[in-house]
């Protein structure tokens, strides 16, 4: 680090430094002071910590752009790279300065918040834990965002690259949900929480930070060790890439198009593939003319992305060919996914992963035959939510077999199409942990064929099966299955 250069950065950015100090203190402390006395003990401290880290995270995006923008302009690169400060010193000093601002203010805010709201309510160890993790969060995000910003050769491309990689896990998660619900019967992602969170250091870091500032009983949030390890890996990777792209930077590329493989070439195709996979999943379940419009629209976006990349509108056979090839491959992959029942995921559920399995059934049926679905007016609703132990010694094997057979038929129906009846209900299966408060392995089906009345009678041996009917005045009448069947028989 070069102390003289650091001194210059501080003196040159005095106004910015004072402005952010005011922002931190106003945002984090002022509103909490107004709520003091009315909120729960320690609330002000936790609230200030969350607000302070939010501002620090914003700075982790803004400061690399602000402080490293000189590498993206020829005239500024001429000035800064000719300074008697080595590139290594410039890189380290600038990152240290950015860290001092983002973390320094966070630290000041946290100490002030603890003195004002935390003493006696929040243990000092908890504060230290929060501050240490915040330091890790800030240095990781600063390095990661600097890495993305330096991959580009101009300011606009640097911001686009940062935004694209930051948003990609979010877009990817949404696409994953759509694809899974389209091609996997039951619709639960193959990996709990999705895979895209692992591509997002900011998401992993925020989740772990939340664990350090969660109030007991208010928010259940556990510190996630794999997230910590992966975040550390991102930090190391970022340092290595930043070192290479700054210390050995070809400054003659300043202001030119960003042709690093990880900038536009990757971003454009990554986003295109994600959307093409979503389109492909719709193509296999319900092909229609509106999809052609969507494919053409995406092609236009693809060309526009290429225009942004090259700064000139050029549509060539290679570009169209690449897009078409990607579209065909994505559609093909989704077709295989459909034919293999979600690559096997539709039937890849566990029946023993947790202590209890819960089956929830809700079906709109005919009043005169609870085993016949209907969308008509004279209907009834059959519902149950029955939990069964999964240990195999609870005497519920018959019930579980009945449920699993029904689930299996629902899966077949999903892939083969509904043969008869109408889709008027739902069947949900999930597992709970020991205290029943947390559920996972959740699957949701829309079968069209209800349980027969005989099956419902069998089910009612293991839990309440309820029947709801509504009279002409929309007044609800609620029965247990046996009561309903007896009443219906008596009315006949």
């Amino acid at each position, binding site marked *: 680090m070069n102390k003289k250069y650091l001194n210059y950065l501080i003196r040159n950015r005095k106004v910015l430094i004072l402005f952010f100090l005011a922002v931190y203190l106003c945002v984090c402390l002022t509103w909490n002071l107004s709520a003091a006395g009315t909120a729960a003990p320690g609330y002000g401290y936790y609230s200030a910590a969350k607000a302070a880290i939010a501002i620090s995270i914003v700075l982790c995006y803004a400061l690399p752009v602000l402080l490293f923008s000189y590498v993206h302009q020829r005239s500024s690169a*001429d000035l800064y790279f000719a300074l008697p400060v080595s590139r290594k010193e410039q890189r380290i000093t600038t990152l240290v300065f950015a860290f001092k601002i983002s973390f320094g203010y966070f630290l000041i805010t946290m100490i002030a918040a603890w003195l004002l709201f935390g003493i006696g309510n929040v243990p000092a160890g908890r504060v230290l834990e929060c501050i240490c993790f915040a330091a890790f969060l800030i240095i990781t995000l600063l390095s990661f965002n600097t890495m993305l910003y330096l991959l580009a050769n101009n300011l606009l491309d640097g911001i686009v690259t940062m935004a694209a990689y930051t948003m990609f896990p979010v877009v990817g998660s949404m696409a994953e949900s759509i694809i899974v619900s389209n091609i996997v019967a039951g619709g639960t992602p193959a990996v709990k929480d999705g895979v895209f969170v692992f591509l997002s250091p900011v998401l992993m870091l925020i989740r772990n930070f939340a664990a350090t500032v969660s109030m007991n009983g208010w928010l259940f949030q556990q510190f996630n060790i794999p997230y910590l390890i992966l975040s550390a890996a991102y930090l190391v990777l970022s340092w290595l890439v930043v070192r290479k792209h700054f210390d050995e930077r070809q400054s*003659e590329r300043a202001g030119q198009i960003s042709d690093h493989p990880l900038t536009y070439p990757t971003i454009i195709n990554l986003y295109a593939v994600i959307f093409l996979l979503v389109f492909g999943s719709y193509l296999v379940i319900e092909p229609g003319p509106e999809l052609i419009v969507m494919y053409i629209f995406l092609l236009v976006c693809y060309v526009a992305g290429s225009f942004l990349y090259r700064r000139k509108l050029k549509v060539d056979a290679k570009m169209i060919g690449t897009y078409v090839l990607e579209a065909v491959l994505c559609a093909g992959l989704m077709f295989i996914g459909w034919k293999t029942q979600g690559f096997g995921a539709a039937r890849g559920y566990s029946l023993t992963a947790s202590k209890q399995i819960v089956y929830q059934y809700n079906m709109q049926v005919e009043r005169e035959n609870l085993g016949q679905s209907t969308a008509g007016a004279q209907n009834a609703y059959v519902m149950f939510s029955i939990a069964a132990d999964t240990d195999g010694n609870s005497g519920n094997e018959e019930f579980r077999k009945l449920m699993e057979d029904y689930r299996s038929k629902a899966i077949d129906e999903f892939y083969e199409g509904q043969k008869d009846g109408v889709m008027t209900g739902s069947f949900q299966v999930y597992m709970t942990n020991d205290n029943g408060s947390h559920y996972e392995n959740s699957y949701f089906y829309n079968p069209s064929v209800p349980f027969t009345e005989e099956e419902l009678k069998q089910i009612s041996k293991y839990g309440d099966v309820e029947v709801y009917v509504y009279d002409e005045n929309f007044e609800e009448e609620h029965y247990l299955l046996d009561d309903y069947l007896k009443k219906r028989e008596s009315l006949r």
Partner: protein
Amino acid sequence: MLKIEHLEKSFGSHPVLKDLNLELQKGSVFGLVGVNGAGKSTLLRLIAGVYQPDGGSIQFEGKDTFRDADIRASISFVSDEPYYEPGTTMESMKLLYESVYPFDPALFKNYCEEFELDPSKPIAGFSKGMKRRMSIIFGLCTHPKLLLLDEAYDGLEPLARLKFKRILAERIEEENLSVIIASHSLRELEDICDSFGILENGQISEYGDLIETKGKVNKYQAAFSEEVTKDQFSGLDILSFQSEGRVVQMVVRGEEETVRAELAKHDPVLVDVLPVTFEELFIYELESRG
């Protein structure tokens, strides 16, 4: 003092400088000339340590200007495009120079007065010429041993140019400053440079003392009793040859006596010898190579 050996630099697949060699002594003012795109700015940026050489070396006082950041405290690079951050003044720009260079605030004050610049005014409001003056002032106030001017001299108005020449002469005399000026304005370079180099095809194709070189290249106007052709003067190093009937105008490289003796073999009626300007020298050198 400055020693460039086998310097190579390419932009992508396009080679800009190829096996370039150059040596510059203390206290010299070197004019770097070449057509647009010849690589003059690239060479200056390489010397300043802004660009990394692909091959070869640039040593200033025995130190690599790209790798050894400390030596760059002795080098001032005045780019053709002055940089300033939005909203800054010369006073605020001074912070950077004060922090990392051996900056002379008294000299800064003097030069600001001499070049009629108000350091407290926003630079964005400066004219092009004022920005040029600003860059030169910052370049000089760090007391460099080597000053690199990339067309910075071109934008100066006549009065500022005169002042600059005087200051430069003082600094050369007092501090043994060396200067490399890349410029298109060859007439101006002629007044200020003592040596020159022509950058062509990625190399310094012509290099030497300006006065000495100019003395060796002359324009000859001669009239002969019969019509003559260029082939008849194959013993001369002719850079340019024009004839109209029996009157010939040619630019020849070589000692005047030698050329005169060669011309005398063809019984000239009249021979006039005219000196060439630096601009003419540059044009004839390039033309002679096609």
